[in-house]
């Protein structure tokens, strides 16, 4: 019974904000092709704010929950 319930709905969002991240993280995200405005689908979340699997451009990447949160956040204009 509980297994199908855990099968999560996928969720889509656009990458909003890269500025708040540290340089290294920005660098690596850029390497992977994750730039501002990129449409990203979340295909799996782990409980207790564990890692999240996202997919874009025919590839799947595992990231941490807090990173996803900051990607979703609205960009603050200077």
């Amino acid at each position, binding site marked *: 019974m509980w297994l199908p319930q855990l*099968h999560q709905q996928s969720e889509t969002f656009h990458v909003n904000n890269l500025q708040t991240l540290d340089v*290294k*993280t920005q660098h690596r995200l850029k390497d*992977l*092709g994750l730039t501002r405005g990129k449409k990203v689908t979340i295909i*799996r979340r*782990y409980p207790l704010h564990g890692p999240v699997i996202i997919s874009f*451009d025919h590839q799947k990447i*595992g990231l941490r929950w807090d990173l996803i949160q900051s990607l979703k956040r609205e960009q603050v204009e200077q």
Partner: protein
Amino acid sequence: MTTIALFGNPNTGKTTLFNRLTDSYAYMGNWSGVTVEKKVGMIKNTNFAIVDLPGIYSLNPLTKDEAIATNFLLTEDQDIIVDVANASQLKRNLLLSIELLEFGKPTVIALNMIDSLRNMGISYNRQVLETAFDCKVMMTNARGNKGTQQLKQELLAEDPRLPATHFSLTYPSSVQQAIKQAVRGLTQNYNVSSQYAKWLAIQFMNANDAVVSFVKQHNLRPLLEQAPYYQAQHFDDKIYQTRLNYIETTLKEARETGSNPHTRDITAKIDRVVTHPLLGLPIFLGIFFLMFKLTFDWFGTPLSDLLDAFVSGPLSTTVNHWLIAAGALPFLRSLIVDGLITGVGGVLVFIPQIFTLFACISLLEDSGYMARAALVMDKLMSKVGLNGKAFIPLIIGFGCNVPGIMAARTIEQPKERLITTLISPYMSCSARLPIYSLFVAAFFAKNQALIVLSLYVLGIVVALVLAKIYQKVLHSENESVFMIELPEYHLPQPTIILRGTWDKGKGFIHKAGTVIFAGTVLIWLLSYFGPSGVVSNISNSFTALIGHSMVPLFAPIGLASWQAISAMLTGILAKETIGATLMVLYHTSGQTALVASLAHLFTPLAAYSFLVFILLYIPCFATIAVIKAETGSWKWALYTIISSLVIAYLVSFLIFQGGLLLGLH
């Protein structure tokens, strides 16, 4: 000689292609960061050398292994660059291609894994790509060995005058203007070729750390003076955007409707189970339990027993007879029969078990599961200040600690890399397996796989606890970034699994002829002689003397046998020698006899305590050496020796004394 360098994003199949082109075998796997060193091979019957390099996303490296690839481009001569790109992720792969093309060397782009692109129902027009990037473009499927021979022919035929590429991307006018200005300044005042000056300028604007520090060091003022301007104008973003736009337009133009997509998305189906939020961790443990079941119960041990019966029975007796017939003196006879056959032979009979374990690890590596394991473990690893990626070196360490420590190069943060290096030796490597096998057969016959699994888990637990302590001491908090690519699963290919197993296992056989041989002879000599010369009773020998003197030291952890203590001393040479030493010292004719005599010398609790000590104490010489090499200092190597000894003693003490208190024996 012509040098061909293989560049490309991580996990695009560079090493597979390298193996195909050179008809050789180098370590392959299905995750990002398998190759952490450069490897050189020759194309058969030619003077073409091929260099396989760690994968990079861009020429601006973040990790140690990426730096190796970038350094190769900058400091060593290559005549041809082969850029290996993952055809189904071209958008991001071509970003690196542009950087390589701007460098100006003759370049061939190999669109690898072309089969998965076709499965997606997409194909690209080669001519369009070749014109757009001003270089040769080849379609390959290195895993299926398709297109690789054409690529080889192309490389061989085009030499020696494969045209240098004149690829030049038009950046926005402000950038273009700045490049022109910088190139003028550099060529006039600093005597640099205009091609190199242009590349240097673009990389500088793009904030490539290495180039920036190079420019500072050489005080290249045309660039330095403009740096604030470049920054204010966000030149790096502009360059990135221009490249991306160019790639997107080109791909749109080159795209052709291919055959119908027939992705039976197996990867998604498998992932639904193995990366399941709740089942992921139990599945991970289950996979390892299955590995030990195969190794100790179903497959490895029965074969080992057969081999042991042969070595300790017919082989040993026959050789003994021959030696007597040939008139060998007792000294030589004992050296060969009691020393070499018992010791070296006694370790070699574990080949089936060790190879089974290696086959399982190779299977995991080839399938693509490793990246998933890293993901599933990330939450746990983050609690000790590491990230899931650090788990891959640890799993590799189950085979051998040395490549495990090398694999830590892929970790971005220096402190996390150091911590991973320091905890790696606690991973139970395959060399410790013979001794486990002997003891579980003697004391825990019914739960062999479970007891061994408990040792492996104990190793992981100790490693994680230490990581937590190091995190506090080194203040590595909040540094951690975790990003991992989850590659498509591969259907395991028997040839690749076999090659991988052999490649790992041959080291074991090699060690049998070298370091285990040496350790066995050493211990045999020390037990054949005593202070009074040749001894008839082994308890008067040097080994017994040394062992006896340390018995009081080890009594608190349940060790009363001087033989076991001497065995641990030789174990520092290589862990396999522990088993060999015990065989020699107990003068038994083989595994079965040793297992029987062990039962009288240890209680089960003392035996487990001994195994725990073996698991955790001083790593072998090879591991100490690689720790020194990777951390660059003797300090850490020495620290590892001392700390592991203390920890091993502490943990086995707790287990033995705790067990006694609980009424175990």
